[in-house]
């Protein structure tokens, strides 16, 4: 009994410490959000987490275009760590810092593409296609 009581007391102390530590960490995060670094984010995107496999190296021309990225950094981190989408795996082990770096990298990618009139090759394809359909 005595030992059991001691164990219970110790457990309470440990739990309280964890809660306090978590609260402290949470407070620090709120005060000092992680700052992403695009240079670090690029290899994380292409190599470490292989985001390129679905989204392509350019994050523009893949299965799901990532630009313009409409998430906040916090929203992005939460989504990637807990993705509910069937084709988008969750990355629970990716740290907030790593995901902030990836976020910063994606933000460096041009959000839009050149206008069709500025891509003569594609304009030409569309014109030829329209002519072929009309024939």
């Amino acid at each position: 009994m005595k030992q059991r009581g001691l164990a219970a007391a110790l457990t309470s102390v440990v739990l309280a410490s964890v809660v306090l530590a978590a609260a402290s960490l949470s407070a620090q995060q709120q005060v000092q959000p992680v700052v992403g670094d695009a240079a670090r984010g690029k290899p994380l995107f292409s190599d470490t987490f292989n985001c390129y496999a679905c989204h392509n190296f350019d994050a523009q021309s893949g299965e799901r275009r990532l630009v313009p990225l409409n998430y906040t950094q916090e929203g992005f981190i939460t989504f990637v760590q807990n993705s509910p989408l069937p084709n988008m795996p969750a990355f629970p082990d990716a740290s907030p810092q790593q995901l902030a770096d990836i976020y910063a990298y994606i933000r460096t990618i041009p959000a839009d593409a050149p206008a069709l009139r500025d891509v003569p090759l594609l304009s030409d394809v569309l014109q030829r296609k329209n002519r072929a359909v009309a024939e």
Partner: protein
Amino acid sequence: MAKRVDSASTGSVDRREFLKGAAAGAAGAAGAIVTGPAPAQQAAPANQRPGVTRPTEADARADFVPPEPRADARFIRNPGSDYMVDVLKALDFDYVAVNPGSAFEGLHESLINHGGNRKPEILTVLHEEAGAAMAHGYAKAAGKPMMTLMHGTVGLLHAGMGLFHAWCDRVPVFAIVGQPRNPTSVINRPHSAQDMGSIVRDFMKMDDEPTNLDVFANIAMRAYTIGLTPPRGPTLLVIDSELQEAPIPDPSKLTIPRLSMPSIPQGDSGAVKEAARLLVSAERPLIRTGKLARTSAGWDRLVELAELLQAPVDVGGYGSWQDFPSWHALYGSGGADYRPDVILGLEINDMTPSVRAVRATGGKTISICSEYLSQGHNIHDFGNYSEVDVAIAADGEVTLPSLIEEVRKQSTGNAQRLRTARGAQVAAAHKSIRESEIDAARYGWNSSPVSVPRLVAELGRQIQNDDWAIVSGHQFTGQWQRRLLNHDKFYRYNGDSGGFGIGYDTPASVGGALAHREHGRLPIAIVGDGDFNFVGAGALWTAAHHKIPLLLIVHNNRAYHAEVMLVQRTAARRGRGNDKVDIGNVIRDPAPDYAKIAEGYGIYSEGPIADPTALGPALERALARVRAGEPALLDVISQPRGPT
């Protein structure tokens, strides 16, 4: 699809040719074997030539049965394989893919010296899988089969994957495997088998092993006709090495059978009439096609039917052939708002999604498909049983004329007015879709590595005035070939592998390019780096050696990238992190240099090309080589996927 051989002329000419040789042989000696010294090749016994090891006494003791005289110590006037070649010539083959082997050395020698290496001409291949894939790609582009020869168990096992693809793609390949019968050498024992055909039987339309030359001729004709009768597929002859080598006992008793091709099954007239009735009365008919049209006539008839009904034509995705012009107003499924009430499936082996799509609204489905005539097989490449309303067991392409005729007969003035309105609706949807597709191609346009649409569009600019043909599949470039290149002829696209295993694209492209060579077309292949690394590099040598023009673009994303995604998703489901999923999936460190590999095979090449602005000039240089009759390779570092 089959080229019908003129029965009177073929039978008599080949028989004359064969009997002429046979008569000469018979006149030479009562026995065909000449044992005395005469031919130069007998100057030195085989076991005294450099590189050939003389058997030891232990070897001799190991085989209790006294060895037969060595095959190359005999001189045979009229070997059985000469007759085999004459039979095969009656089948009008242009090419035979060969990776040499002692199990068919008799047939090999007869093809060269008796047959003159013409019709069929030997295509030297560096792997049997490549040989089978070349025959597969060739058959689709040429509309006639190619032969492929294999050495015993080992050659057949190598070829297995190529034959499997041909089976899944419903394409005829005329395969022959040599059988070392009663082998006395330690090497040939594992190359022979009690039942050779069983190795690949699960994906062959038929296989057989003739016991004498009469039976060989019979089985060769059967294999050809069965292979070309829908649903088409590969066939296998197992040819005993002794049957090839032994002299023909009495040549005057052998004849060359006349090829008699059966007509292709057409739809029952009553069922076709009912199908036409449903289509004519439909408000929103949709035509879906699978492996339908490999001829100009089939292509034209499908266009005729679609225009007559003003019905959109959905040619499907992976695994389908082209069947219908990709830049036609009726191409596609009619847009998101087009809810079909009648779906006509032409050579669709699984109508279940169509049945599901119309069932809720009381719609009807029609299936005209030769798959109904297929017999049971081990491979699950046949479709689900589907509750279609009109099921017609017949070939789709040859049934089209009677269906068109019935639709014309049953059409009324009111139906024609409805069609005009429907056509306008479908055309408007098509316009919207094509504009949005072109718009999507802008994204990543200037990216490095090169985007898939940029790669296809740059190619399209260079070949718009050529008579081109894409001889690879489009599994790894999505729909971008169809969107950005005007597929306005039945031969513009040769289809995917059928079995969706990689390793098909590069060698099958060489086979397809060979078929297009005689028409002066410009063959182009876009193959994945994963595919190229299977048996593709050796196939390049065949293209170089036989001067087969082909532009081969390696769509190089340095990974089996689809598998990267799959392992990522699995790791995520299991909560194990995603930082190791490239293990086993990427082709880096070192990244192979495909241009250097091609150069090593004697082929003009450039790459790696990662800068999109460098791609156009590189294509121009490589295409100049191809137009001059050479193969060429471009290694393009590419984005893994096209935008959707």
